[in-house]
């Protein structure tokens, strides 16, 4: 099956710093999504981004499908950005698209 690798696995930042999270995948995909899991366990969809660049406030994402990677940028990080960031690739097969998740990047933002 497809492999989805995220780096770095862990990241500690001071508030106000910028960061880049990377997601590599081993095969062609229909699209890619980024999620944030907050410290209370809730999973929030950040981006649905099969290709190109999207921005949402301090966060932006870029997917280069031909080179099989995606990047998530966090600018001016805040403590509320802490949690785990997952990328997931969407493969269509059979009756529905199914997401395969990476193992995540755990981010801690400190004061």
């Amino acid at each position: 099956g497809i492999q989805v690798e995220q780096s770095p696995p862990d990241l500690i930042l001071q508030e106000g710093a910028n960061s880049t999270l990377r997601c590599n995948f081993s095969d062609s995909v229909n699209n890619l999504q980024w999620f944030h899991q907050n410290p209370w366990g809730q999973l929030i969809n950040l981006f649905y981004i099969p290709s190109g660049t999207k921005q949402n406030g301090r966060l932006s994402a870029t997917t280069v499908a031909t080179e099989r990677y995606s990047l998530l940028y966090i600018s001016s990080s805040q403590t509320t950005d802490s949690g785990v960031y997952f990328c997931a690739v969407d493969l269509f097969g059979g009756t529905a698209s199914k997401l395969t998740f990476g193992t995540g990047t755990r981010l801690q933002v400190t004061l």
Partner: protein
Amino acid sequence: DAGITQSPRHKVTETGTPVTLRCHQTENHRYMYWYRQDPGHGLRLIHYSYGVKDTDKGEVSDGYSVSRSKTEDFLLTLESATSSQTSVYFCAIRTTGGDSPLHFGNGTRLTVT
């Protein structure tokens, strides 16, 4: 808010007992999914549904069954719970078709003793 409610939120059960988790949605979305989340494994797909009475297996379906008798409810059943099924279970939906953003419920923490 995608209108997803999971119940119960927490459950402790004994090995060998049957357990049913419920996912309820209020907006008639066609596609529903069950994932489990475990340390070191991320989120893995158990089963999914693409309509009433239409379901299929994911990558970790052994020991689980599902049913969808009406659009709004997707049930996950552990016929005979084992300790390896201790996990956090997430239900998810797609809001606008089979290839659209995925939105999750708040999860059910299941402990099998």
